[in-house]
């Protein structure tokens, strides 16, 4: 990984002001005159990246030596970006913690303070502009969910989370359609698509001899405004790729029926038989936090203070409903004391609770929890069993 600000020389040679690869601005839907899909050759793409690198933080998937996996890392030059092959999810695998972690960091400072000045709490500097390249459509959908969850609600009981919002407003998401999904992918079963644009600003499709770039928001359109407009043949090629990718995902989930069945188990009285189903399903679960930390929509956090040598900070850190401590009262009473009640909470959150809270499922079908579970628990099998065992 290159250090910040390194290798900016390419940017210096750019035609200044010739290109409106502006970052920031409103995430409003793209206007019809700017919505035409564009074509980016690899050279154009590299130039775009290098120009952005000079202006803001640019993240893209790169191969990480230690883990042997692709992860979003801050890049210093277009030469580090490996978008080729990235559309082949089955081969390159899922992308670890990010982009969630770039919008909702695992540890985030809320305030700095000094014990010598009680009552004075100083917010950190606002985050910087960032552009993420190669975001999968499922992760785009997850960001759209987080946008809703962290936004304020009209009844004012839940104001907007300003830390999330500050990062989100300074973030541009450039998606890359998945041409060949992995066998753990099931976005279509939960309302997504391997070529979906939800949450993204711009969607790229790898046409192998270049990228098709479809603006979704004005922010995205600004990045490619002076690129050549795509031809009908390009569009048809994209269409074929999208159809093939869609067909490769065969899992289906009747999410409406599932929610009805799950909601019946909510009722305190008479949840006995459902309890047995949850117990059986959760037996292989050891209540670690892998699935929740990797999940692009899991967003629970703890707040913790630190103080060292007269300098303190209040931070929030990711937490997981799978941990015993998550719900335990200071008195020792724990409303979700049993492992299966915690397992249940996660599944319910995905397929029932968030629908009630913000009107959306919080499973985007990325499959991270499937590949990362140390005991091979597959959410698709869990859901299948629930649909079979719970009464409608």
């Amino acid at each position, binding site marked *: 990984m290159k250090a910040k600000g390194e290798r900016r020389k390419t940017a210096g040679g750019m035609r200044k002001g010739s290109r409106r690869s502006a970052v920031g601005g409103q995430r409003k839907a793209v206007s019809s005159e700017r919505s035409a899909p564009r074509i980016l050759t690899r050279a154009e793409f590299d130039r775009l990246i290098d120009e952005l690198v000079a202006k803001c933080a640019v993240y893209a998937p790169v191969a990480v030596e230690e883990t042997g996996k692709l992860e979003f890392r801050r890049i210093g030059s277009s030469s580090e970006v490996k978008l080729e092959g990235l559309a082949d999810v089955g081969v390159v695998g899922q992308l670890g913690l990010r982009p969630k972690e770039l919008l909702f960091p695992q540890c985030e400072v809320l305030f700095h303070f000094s014990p010598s000045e009680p*009552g004075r709490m100083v917010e950190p500097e*606002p985050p910087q502009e960032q552009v993420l390249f190669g975001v999968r459509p499922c992760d785009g959908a997850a960001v759209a969910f987080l946008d809703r969850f962290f936004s304020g609600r009209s009844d004012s009981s*839940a104001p907007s989370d*300003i830390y999330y919002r500050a990062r989100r407003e300074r973030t541009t998401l450039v998606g890359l359609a998945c041409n060949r999904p992995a066998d753990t992918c099931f976005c279509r079963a939960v309302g997504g698509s391997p070529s979906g644009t939800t949450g993204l600003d711009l969607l790229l499709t790898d046409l192998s001899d270049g990228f098709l770039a479809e603006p979704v928001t004005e922010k995205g359109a600004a990045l490619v405004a002076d690129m050549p407009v795509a031809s009908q043949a390009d569009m048809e090629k994209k269409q074929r790729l999208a159809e093939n990718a869609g067909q490769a995902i065969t899992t289906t989930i009747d999410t409406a029926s599932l929610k009805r069945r799950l909601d019946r188990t909510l009722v305190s009285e008479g949840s006995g038989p459902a309890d047995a189903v949850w117990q059986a399903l959760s037996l292989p679960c050891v209540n670690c936090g892998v699935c929740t930390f990797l999940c692009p929509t899991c967003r629970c956090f703890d*707040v913790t203070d630190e103080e060292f040598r007269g300098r303190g900070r209040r931070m929030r850190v990711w*937490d997981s409903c799978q941990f015993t401590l998550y719900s335990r009262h200071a008195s020792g*009473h724990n*409303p979700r004391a049993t492992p299966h009640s915690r397992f249940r*909470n996660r599944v319910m959150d995905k397929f029932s609770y968030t629908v009630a809270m913000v009107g959306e499922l919080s499973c985007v079908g990325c499959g991270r929890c499937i590949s990362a579970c140390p005991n091979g628990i597959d959410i698709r099998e869990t859901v299948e069993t629930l649909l079979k065992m719970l009464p409608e």
Partner: protein
Amino acid sequence: MTANPYRPIPVRIEQVTIENEARDLKSFELSFVNEEHRKGWHFVPGQFAFLSIAGVGEAPFGIASAPSEPLLRFTVKRIGTFTTALHELDRGSIIGLRGPYGNSYPWDLMTGRDVVIVSGGFSFTTLRATLVHILQPENRPGFGDVTVIYGARSPGELLYKEELKELEKRPDLRLVICVDRLNGADWPKTEGLVPNVLRQVAPAATNAVALVCGPPVMIRFTHPVLKELGFSPDRVFLSLENRMKCGIGKCGHCNIGPKFVCKDGPVFSYQELLTLPQEY
């Protein structure tokens, strides 16, 4: 950045009172350091707020004072890291406050009706606020009969003892204070567990609203008694105390099914709780 919902405002500890024999319950009475914060602070009995000590952390507590009282009161049991640190603070210390959060007791529904308050242990705090609010001369005519059953393990563990002794004298209030074991004490007068005392006192359920707050075990045994007495589930309200970190429906901790105790509660009708998992 615009208004930051995580930012505590400074408050000063004006008064610290040890509330029980075990000396692990203290009341902290707070004033606002800044006048503008005092003016902007409006709450309804039943709501809660976070107290904050920089370097230690934050924790939520029910507001034990009524809106009409000049100082904000919180009664805190020393039970964890934060409460231990708070207990070590004296008058004059500056701490943080954010809130008020949550809904409140169902004031619209309570208006014009009898009110039955059932409480156990140190959860009496927000119900004390409620009681004081109801008993305000300008508010009292708005309610019917008011019955309070408040219990603790032993006489020494009862909160607000002097105040309760005064309240016992009031003709417009039926206040029954009980303890699990009297152990020869001459006050209070009633021995017994809260649910049993409630059964004996048997307040009329017709046109009444019951407010319940207490430890989980008390809540469990109080429900059936209220049912026996004829209280329908939509007339019984509970104040819950799940673990929480943010107070604004973001951190996730306090969920009971799809509801957050912090923003959808802390007060729930028993009717609503019947549609939620028993995770409280």
